[in-house]
């Protein structure tokens, strides 16, 4: 049976690879076309005359387009990392309690996290737009970081609770019986067991914050706090009928590089984090 399925599996494998990578190859190819080539119209897949020109523009701090793009990159990294850091800290406390302690309202917290994770973020845009101008949070980093908690925090709690439930907590007591102090037991036993889960939750949370778009275009107005997705959507160039395809593709490639690096390094963990506990029973 399995031998006969060999060819089918190879085909399936090839289909999955093409499905996943063709659009990526497309933006990479597009990023090496010259701006002139696309202005004239260039329907073929590969560039006629590959050039680094787009990268030179976007990675040049002195070019207006490059300056805006790199500011947006800094904003994206800063905002996503801070939002991730904060939500993982709060979520770790909550998930520890959920996994280890028996207390009233435990199921309620998980249901609440789930409900909030499904909350339509765009519903927050109106009230936040109004409130943030009063609180002077409009167009600032905290102005984005705070509402990002609506989706990063539930995601982190959910993922961490699933991980923590798998940890053999008895080992902490076992270490103490063997003569370890509680600090040693925590430091040498619990931290190494919990760290991979915390790290995975952080990666997933980072992806979500890095991806966010609705709030990023609604609650910002300048490159002072605009993140990359928002900046890209406003980056139409001088001629609205002829968007700078190649530069947009280049920006796309550059912001996808961190994603690919993270995926390459931690693929196994990400898959575990995405599915751990999400399907059991």
């Amino acid at each position: 049976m399995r031998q006969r399925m060999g060819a089918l599996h190879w085909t399936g494998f090839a289909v999955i690879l093409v499905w996943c990578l063709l659009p990526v190859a497309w933006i990479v190819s597009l990023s090496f076309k010259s701006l002139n080539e696309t202005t004239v119209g260039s329907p073929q897949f590969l560039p006629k005359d590959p050039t680094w020109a787009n990268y030179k523009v976007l990675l040049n701090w002195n070019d207006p387009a490059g300056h805006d793009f790199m500011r947006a990159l800094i904003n994206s990294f800063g905002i996503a990392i801070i939002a991730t850091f904060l939500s993982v800290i709060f979520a770790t406390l909550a998930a520890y309690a959920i996994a280890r302690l028996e207390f009233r309202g435990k199921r309620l917290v998980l249901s609440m996290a789930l409900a909030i994770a499904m909350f339509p973020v765009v519903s927050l845009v109106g009230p936040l737009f109004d409130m943030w101008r009063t609180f002077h949070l409009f167009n600032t980093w905290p102005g984005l970081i705070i509402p990002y908690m609506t989706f990063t925090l539930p995601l982190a709690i959910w993922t961490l609770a699933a991980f923590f439930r798998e940890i053999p907590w008895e080992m902490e007591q076992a270490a103490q019986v063997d003569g370890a102090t509680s600090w040693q037991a925590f430091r040498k036993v619990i931290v190494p067991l919990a760290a991979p889960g915390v790290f995975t939750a952080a990666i997933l949370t980072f992806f979500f914050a890095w991806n966010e778009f609705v709030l990023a275009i609604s609650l910002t107005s300048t490159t002072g706090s605009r993140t990359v997705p928002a900046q890209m959507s406003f980056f139409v160039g001088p001629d609205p009928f002829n968007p700078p395809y190649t530069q947009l593709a280049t920006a796309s490639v550059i912001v996808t590089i961190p994603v690919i690096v993270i995926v390459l390094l931690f693929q196994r963990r990400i898959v575990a984090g995405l599915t751990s506990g999400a399907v059991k029973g």
Partner: protein
Amino acid sequence: MTTLTTPAASSAASKRSPVSDRSIAENRLGQRLIAPAVILMLIVTAWPMVRALYLSLFRYRLTTPDDRQFVWFRNYLTVLGDGLFWRVTLNTVIIMVVTVAVELVVGFVFAMVMHRIIFARGVMRTSILIPYGIITVVSAFAWQFTFSINNGWVNSWFDWLPWISADTNWYGAHWPAMFAIMVSEIWKTTPFMSLLLLAGLAQVSEDMLEAAQVDGATWWQRLFKVILPNMRAAIMVAVLFRALDAFRIFDNIYVMTKGAQNTESSSFLTYRQVIEQFQLGMGSALSVLLFLTVLLLAFLIVRLFRVDLAQARGEG
């Protein structure tokens, strides 16, 4: 916070019959540990939502803030009486149903392949995670360019199909534009679906499959009688997550069509009212309606398919 102290019909409470000091302390510690996260979640969602509820009762345009006027439920009546609202809702439902259905089938095929394949698992895992991790806006741009009339490859690669030629304008009419939007959504989110289904597939016992095979069940019979019923929990969780996510579609539409050719979604309409038209009152009414729709949708899916999330999560 009051919600926390209500004994939420918890079976845990009844289990702890002899109330010891230890269990009281544990209870207190647990609630203290979750408090920061719970308070924060309430501040960032419940509070703005209450504010939206309040604002939705006003005629309130940001450009003329002094004309703010209390109008009771008139905004809701205007919205619900407007054909645009229903058209947009219909669009959103179409996008949700089509994308989730396609993703479920394609995702399942992918999961089957990944489950059986024994070589290059790392390569496959990496590739499947790239669409998942890529920014939605980037995916939308990639597909917008793919379907572009001057700079895309779809028209030249598929011109052997009768309805596609070199000058097919995908953004010139409703259905082709919707198609392009749905393709970008499906491309980006199928991997997530397939990973959830893969995890479900791993739960199906090999012994049971072999037994069915020995008993002479065909491949299709094994699929529909053994594999799928045993993955029910995984499928339902995947459908629930993806359906609610698809219903909130915004990024692709914003990038690819800006809502032209009647491709607006509910999220897009809400955004446009608030940010582009400064109709804070009307926009808030739309926000509230969107929130209620998502709530209703979640309720329907959970009820209809009897998804027990707690059980699916091994919560017991």
